[in-house]
Structures are given as structure tokens and as C-alpha cells.
């Protein structure tokens, strides 16, 4: 994000008033902007006071429920700091070329839950941890780009990609829920406008696409009646340009 008013976003960011895609873009900027991070930390303390000001005792029974739940909840291991970006998983790459008949679908790793990013410790949770790390690693690439588009029927699709890494992460947010039997399928469009499957997805989903990114010009999304069809049978609900 390079717009001149990017620093203005500390306010809406701290108030959680940014839409998902702008939040991701701002967090990418935050990772490189130490004055922004310092401002975010200070403004967050101010916002915290607003929160504290409306404190109300919760019902006493809640305490027993929470204590019972933590008794059966394992804590996360601490993060061991590792500033090096993770190397591309060679095994996954080899597997991809061996199973080329399945195209990109074989390389699309299903990652559950909605998107987030690890540069912000507050966003950590079980659902998002893994893709957060992947997203952070991708966004930290010097050639990382973000594109987004609206999906017919509601919701947005955001693509974060790095040609150097030959990886992309697709974040779907707020897409319409589909009736039983129908599914969203992701596609990568090449220069001849042929569509290559990149796997199926849910209405709020995050997908890692590893390999096959560099020669593609757009991300397509269709609603299919059969999951994992080899070519789109429907007109795209979204076509997000990647170049």
C-alpha cells in the first residue's frame, strides 16, 4: 500500500474499522513502518481506555464455565523467533509436478478459517495461525502484490501473490452461502484465457496456491454443481486481474 494517506490508517486500524482487505494491506505496511507500529501501540492504549470505561461485571456463572474450559485447553507453545522466511516446501513441489494431471488443485493446500496475519500478535488464534504465518511470509516478499475484486452475489476475493515465490494466497470473505451440492471453485487464468483449477473453497476461506502463479493473469471463481470439475462449467462469479 503506497497511497499518501496510509499513515492515516492507524486510527481506523486501532478501532477495527478497516475492511478485511485494507486491514491486510495496512498490516503489510505496518511490518515495515516502525513509526506506524509505535503509533498503533499508543493509540491502542487510548482505545483500551474506552473499553475499560464501559466495564460491567459478567454473570458469575461465566467464571465457572471459563475455568472449566481452560482446565481442558492446552496452551500454545511460545513462538520461537525466526526472521528467515520459510523455504518453499520442496516435497510439496515435487508432489505437485508428479501429480500434474490434477493441475493446481493438487498443490492448493486447504487452510481452514478466515484470513489474518501474524505481524499483529492480537490476531493469533488456532484457526488462523498457520495461514497467518504463510501470509506474513508472502507479504514480506519484496515483490508481493495484492489484488481484490467483488464477487457476484456478495463478498470479496483478495489475492496476495509473489511471482518470486511462485505462491499466492486467496482470501475469500463474506461470499454467499451455497445450497447443498454446490461449491465455489477457484481458477487461475493463463494468457490464452484457459482456466486451471486451483481447488474448491468455502464462502469465508483462505487458500494457499503454490506454484503455477507466474504465467497467470487472473483469479476466477465459479459456483460449480460438482466439486473439482476439470474446467469451469459456469460463468465466473468473479475474475480478479493479477497483473
Amino acid at each position: 500500500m503506497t497511497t499518501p494517506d496510509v499513515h492515516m490508517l492507524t486510527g481506523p486500524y486501532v478501532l477495527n474499522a478497516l475492511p478485511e482487505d485494507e486491514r491486510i494491506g495496512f498490516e503489510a505496511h505496518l511490518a515495515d513502518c516502525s513509526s506506524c507500529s509505535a503509533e498503533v501501540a499508543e493509540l491502542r492504549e487510548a482505545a483500551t481506555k474506552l473499553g475499560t470505561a464501559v466495564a460491567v461485571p459478567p454473570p458469575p456463572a461465566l467464571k465457572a464455565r471459563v475455568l472449566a474450559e481452560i482446565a481442558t485447553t492446552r496452551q500454545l507453545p511460545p513462538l520461537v523467533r525466526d526472521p528467515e522466511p520459510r523455504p518453499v516446501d520442496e516435497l510439496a513441489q515435487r508432489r505437485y509436478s508428479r501429480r500434474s494431471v490434477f493441475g493446481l488443485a493438487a498443490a492448493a493446500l486447504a487452510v481452514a478459517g478466515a484470513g489474518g496475519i501474524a505481524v499483529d500478535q492480537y490476531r493469533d488464534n488456532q484457526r488462523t495461525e498457520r495461514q497467518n504465518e504463510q501470509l506474513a511470509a508472502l507479504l514480506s516478499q519484496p515483490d508481493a502484490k495484492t489484488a481484490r475484486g467483488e464477487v457476484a452475489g456478495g463478498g470479496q476475493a483478495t489475492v496476495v501473490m509473489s511471482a518470486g515465490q511462485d505462491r499466492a494466497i486467496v482470501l475469500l470473505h463474506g461470499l454467499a452461502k451455497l445450497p447443498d451440492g454446490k461449491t465455489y471453485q477457484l481458477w487461475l487464468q493463463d494468457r490464452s484465457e484457459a482456466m486451471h483449477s486451483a481447488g474448491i473453497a468455502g464462502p469465508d476461506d483462505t487458500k494457499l496456491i503454490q506454484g503455477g502463479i507466474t504465467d497467470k493473469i487472473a483469479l476466477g471463481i465459479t459456483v460449480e454443481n460438482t466439486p473439482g470439475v476439470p474446467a469451469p462449467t459456469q460463468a465466473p462469479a468473479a475474475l480478479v486481474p493479477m497483473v
Partner: protein
Amino acid sequence: MSVTEESMALPWPVVTGPGGTTPAELMARVARGDSDAFTQLYDQMAPRVFGLIRRVLRNPAQSEEVTQEVMVEVWRTATRYDADRGSPTSWILTMAHRRAIDRVRSEQSSSDREQAVAAASTTPAYDEVSEAVTTNLEVEQVRHCLSALTELQRESVTLAYYGGYSYREVAELLDAKLATIKARMRDGLIRLRDCLGVTGK
């Protein structure tokens, strides 16, 4: 809301627990799996977490549910808390606010938008800040500092924070330009920070 003996014994807000245990000390113990420390941290933090979530969501049952999620998440991720990046209170309330906002937005996207708007449409006038507790100095200070903002700053900040609106929705409600609202959210918070004398560490 009934006040129980338990909450009387630990009146809100407890900045330090018995023996002067600060949230930072408790967090360090919680990170090492100390459930007694977590119980104390719960007593200190749950009223703030619940109050904020209820302020945003309005629905008491949902608020309890989200409060439970947040407090369990505090336990689970205490190992990842980094004191260099903010106070425990800020860490926990940020998590609480995000969970509340996520709930608002997911209801909106499941076309429950009307309900969410209705829930938040009794706009958070700053007077309402004192609704829950009026005797506390900290609350008085927040109220005072909010009243020192311009009207547009105050409305931008409170509609987003208490109302759970995105900046685009706030701009719509206040009939202002997007860039103006982004700027008022920032300078409003800066003025609050200066008035409240808070720092990032």
C-alpha cells in the same frame, strides 16, 4: 445486572489484585500454565472484556459467549503475549474488541445486517460511557477527554469503537468524506492519548 458477593469482593476495576499483583505479573505466570494466576487475571479482566463486548453486541447471551471465547483465548495464547508490544489490558481488550467486531461483521454478511444495525443504532453518545460505573476516576477521565474532542472526532471514534462500524459506514452515517473520517479517527485517538497520558509500553 445483579451484583454478587463475588464481584463485591473484587469490585471493578481491580488494577491490582490481593498482594498487589499486576496484570503483567499475572500474564507471565499464566504463560507458564498457572491456573490460579489465570483465575486472578479473570477477576481483573472479565468485567472489562464483558462490558466492552456487550457494549458492541448488545445481546447479553452472545456477549457471554464471546467473553468466554476471549478469556479462553487469553489462556491459550498467553504464551505468545509480547510485553514489548503493549500492556496485558490492551492485548486482552484488543482481542475482545476484534471478536465482537468479527461477530458483528459475520452477522452482517449472513444478511443479518438489520439486526446488527438495530443493535448499534442507539448511538454511543459519550454520556453513555458513564452508564455502568460513575464513581471511578478512570471513567471520569475518559469522559472528560472524550468531551474535549471535536464532535466529528468523537463521533468517528465512538461509532467505530462502540458501534462496531467500519470507517465507510461511519462516513455514511456522518455524511462525511472517507478521507475525513479516517483522519478524524486518527486525530481523535491522538488527542485522547494525549489527554489520558497513555503510552504504548
